[in-house]
């Protein structure tokens, strides 16, 4: 799972975050992680 796009994700409660990287309208990378 790539973390290179998210330097920091901070939420008061544990939460699910879905990340997608889009280039020229196409999703080139995606992942989901739990953060808190």
């Amino acid at each position, binding site marked *: 799972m790539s973390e290179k*796009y*998210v330097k920091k994700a901070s*939420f*008061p409660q544990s*939460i699910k975050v879905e990340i997608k990287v*889009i280039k020229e309208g196409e*999703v080139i990378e995606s992942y989901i992680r739990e953060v808190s």
Partner: protein
Amino acid sequence: MSLILERLVKELPQLGDILYSIIQRKYDIKDSIWELSLVVPAGQTIYAKVDVPKDIIYFERGYEFDVDKLGVISFTHYHDGRLIMKDITIDDSILSFRYSTPEICVNYFEVYVTNNDTVDHTVKVKGLYKAVPRELYDRVRVL
């Protein structure tokens, strides 16, 4: 009932403030902040979908942005699939943004951060909100 209340609050904004302060005190509703710091490659978009915790809902009050270059990053934002901001270019005027009335977010929100420059940039987004117990929201919603 909620429509009547909504109309009253619209016509008497101070009534809304009074009602809100009563609810805030009774349910111990505090200001909260979420933060996402993203590295957005040149010419690309980072999409983030964030699920709201099951026991609360968000009343979004505004945003704060921090970018390493102004005028090259655009921001689009949705609450529960509802468009809130579309292709706002982050410049001086938007670095600290507040809604005139809070924007409700019940299940999830989405952000699209697009880098229109030819080099990578780091973008920090802070969401300012009040977390309201979902049980309270559900009770008021059916009035």
